[in-house]
């Protein structure tokens, strides 16, 4: 007998009609038709399961912000490394800063890009009158940090820096705030430690050049008596006027 007609196979695969005796007989002998039928049945089975997948909800924007922070300036042929901050957690030696600062550079640039758009919007949303803000930054999580983490920084006219953070990963040490020079990440100013409250105000050291030290960085610091940056950055954002 001839192979089964393609239309006929579809009807059988959809269980819309039953095999005639002659067809059943052919199917037991013909591996080609068997395979054809099995494969169409698989398509029909999976096809019937996809109804709920038709209109999946759009993924939230904060995931994209994490991605944007993770991708900027990464060279195309770099090894697949999505966690620049992890590489930084090596041995801590003050003079060795340059070793971890190179990978940080890419992440820092990423944060700038990620934040630029947000800042542009927030500049026009206005703040309470009387609270004179001279610069501000939105902090985005680096790639290793949960995407829900973030923060907002304002430099006030009286030399105080107000910082709000949310959803920072738990630490066995403490969180420290820094101002980095994005053009030379070995240069930085330590602003101080974050208390357990979501909002903190830290004094800006007098004379700090915010045009240079414009990259705000929140790091996870262990209690090891080493005052240098641990290399384990959690949030970044660039100050703009």
């Amino acid at each position: 007998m001839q192979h089964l007609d393609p239309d006929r196979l579809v009807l059988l695969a959809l269980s819309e009609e039953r095999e005639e005796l002659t067809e059943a007989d052919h199917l037991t002998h013909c591996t080609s038709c068997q395979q054809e039928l099995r494969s169409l049945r698989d398509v029909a089975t999976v096809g019937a399961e996809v109804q709920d997948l038709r209109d999946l909800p759009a993924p939230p924007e904060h995931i994209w912000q994490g991605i944007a922070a993770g991708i900027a300036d990464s060279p195309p042929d770099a090894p697949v490394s999505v966690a620049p901050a992890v590489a930084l957690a090596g041995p801590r030696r003050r003079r060795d800063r340059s070793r971890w600062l190179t990978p940080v550079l890419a992440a820092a640039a990423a944060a700038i890009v990620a934040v630029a758009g947000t800042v542009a919007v927030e500049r026009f949303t206005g703040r309470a009158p009387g609270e004179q803000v001279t610069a501000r930054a939105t902090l985005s999580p680096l790639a290793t940090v949960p995407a829900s983490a973030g923060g907002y920084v304002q430099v006030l006219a009286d030399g105080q820096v107000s910082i709000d953070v949310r959803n920072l990963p738990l630490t066995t040490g403490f969180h420290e705030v820094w101002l980095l020079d994005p053009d030379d990440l070995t240069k930085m100013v330590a602003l101080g430690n974050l208390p357990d409250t979501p909002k903190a105000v830290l004094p800006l050291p007098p004379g700090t050049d915010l045009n240079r030290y414009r990259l705000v960085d929140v790091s996870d610091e262990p209690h090891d008596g080493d005052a240098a940056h641990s290399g384990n950055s959690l949030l970044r954002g660039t100050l703009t006027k």
Partner: protein
Amino acid sequence: MSSDDELAGRLRAGDQAALRVAYERHGAAVLYLAQRLLGNRADAEDVTQLTFVAAWTGRDGFDPQRGTMLGWLLGIARRKAVDRLRSAAREERKAETVAAHPATPVEDTPERIVDRLVVADELERLPEEQRRTLELAFFDDLTHPQIAAVTGLPLGTVKSHIRRGMANLRRRWEVDGAALGSRSAGPSRAL
């Protein structure tokens, strides 16, 4: 709507806007897969983020001749999710806790979920009438004559839409699906 080819070209050229397009188009499927595999939203969001960052870093590895962008992204997401499950398992062993993992039913294996996402995506790409007739057959379980009655299309047209539609889904599945090794042997016959 730009094709995968064009997107791949823009990605390779280092155009971040192309990654954004890919995210808007396929981010939901990646997040869905991760959530199904990992079972919690926070980890799923993390894996989604890792997936697109890895896609960017490894963008030279995407070849539109070998599969679609969605298939490629789901492959990365699957590996990332499995890595995470493994490291979570290691953590559990470290803590000497024994968690009972319920056996995964076959319809919820990672491969099957990927297959579904791929087929759902292809269904969206089919010509309107092909898609509509297949939806009536798959989701509403209507017979060919019933579909002809509902749509007003001649029975012969319904037949050919369904046959071609299923052939399209199958071709796409053969290109991008995860569970094919065990399923289809040999090239598909022209339908």
